[in-house]
């Protein structure tokens, strides 16, 4: 029979996964709204973000209460500390979805420049990183988490490439600067979402294996 504490830990995990699924919904919807210049869809993002914020507070309170009342150790302690950090990362991802949705209103009056950016391939990689980070947490899968971390540099490269393409495009078509700037912002937000997915995976590796890989900590030992 599971102890009450184990049930509480499972409950924390369930809540974090629900929050993660809301975050994914928020990011994909914001990108759909961007692609289709759909203001109504963009407006839904702030409502989802409100729910994400509520989850963040509830999960943080749950973790603090469990630490205070059960003084967890070992894998249980690592799990709760990891959840507190992942919780924070997910909430910030939700904020980036809001930022992306905010760009939609700037694009409404602009001409379409989809063909000159590789932002949509960046979107695919970032969404894949987000899903894999959440699944690695769900399955306590450090190996999968490690692979996500390795993808971060790919997204950094795509962000740099997008910047270069858009800057060149703006130099060649100054009248399109207004249409290009929102995409610069979107690229920056996507890159931050990839960073946060990487953070989540670093915490998954800590939870699963007690290894600290961030900031190349293991190499410096």
């Amino acid at each position: 029979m599971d102890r009450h504490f184990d049930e509480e830990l499972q409950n924390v995990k369930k809540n974090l996964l629900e929050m993660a699924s809301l975050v994914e919904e928020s990011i994909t919807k914001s990108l759909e709204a961007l692609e289709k210049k759909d203001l109504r869809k963009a407006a839904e993002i702030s409502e989802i973000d409100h729910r994400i914020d509520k989850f963040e507070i509830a999960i943080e309170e749950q973790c603090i209460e469990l630490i205070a009342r059960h003084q967890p150790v070992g894998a249980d302690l690592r799990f709760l500390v990891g959840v507190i950090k992942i919780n924070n990362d997910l909430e910030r991802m939700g904020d980036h979805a809001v930022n992306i949705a905010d760009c939609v209103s700037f694009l409404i009056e602009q001409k379409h420049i989809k063909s000159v950016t590789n932002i949509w391939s960046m979107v695919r990689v970032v969404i894949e990183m987000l899903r894999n980070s959440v699944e690695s947490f769900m399955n306590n899968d450090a190996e999968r988490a490690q692979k996500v971390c390795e993808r971060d540099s790919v997204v950094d490269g795509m962000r740099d490439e997008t910047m270069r393409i858009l800057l060149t495009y703006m130099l060649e078509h100054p009248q399109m600067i207004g249409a290009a700037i929102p995409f610069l912002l979107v690229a920056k937000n996507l890159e931050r979402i990839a960073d946060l997915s990487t953070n989540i995976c670093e915490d998954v590796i800590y939870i699963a294996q007690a290894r600290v890989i961030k900031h190349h900590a293991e190499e410096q030992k």
Partner: protein
Amino acid sequence: MIVRTANLNLYYHQFQALINVNLAIKENVITGIIGPSGCGKSTLLRVFNRMNDLIDGVRITGSVVIDDEDIYSPVFDLTALRKRVGMVFQRPNAFPLSVFDNVAYGPRVWGISDKKTLTEIVERSLAAVDLFNDLKDYLQRSALSLSAEKQQRLCIARLLAVEPEILLMDEPCSALDPIATGKIEELMIMLKQKYTIVIVTHNMQQAARIADDVGFMLLGELIEFDKAKKIFTDPADERTFGYISGRFG
């Protein structure tokens, strides 16, 4: 390393209470021994001052070395060992004497009778456990009139009066409330600068708070011995995790 055991086995008649224990206790650190009731942790503690010798039917194999001397060697001076290795018990065991006479008891046994010298030892020992200021005007009062926490401090002062090197503590806070426990823990952290401390405790949080090294025992075996940080964040053995997380034991 100040204390080292090698292939240590201990039997009570036919029952084997310690099984092949290999352990190295470092100088000036607090070593915590944890484990469920009956796992052998108190037996292990009593090995270090040979208190098990007083129990009928006890047999020991393997070696226990303190500073390169095998304490189970037939030529080893047992009285000197008891002076070097002091012990604090679960319940304060102050003698029904005055505060002064409690602390002066050991030095008197060791032949010190000069009043001035004894007074110096008593004052120094009480100061070391942070009792002198409280008790300096009540040194002739009965030790049994003190609170449980102060009696436990007094017992530690009584040990320090004979200048030991190692302090063995067997559940020293189990009879104390949380405030008194906190004070004794602070005292232990202070004392480790001069003494090597080995503490047996049921209280996992206490081991986590004060121990530098922690050993987990189960059914007479030392399952895991490591830095407290490692034991409490990433124990190597599933059984250690099971115990410290309260999943068994």
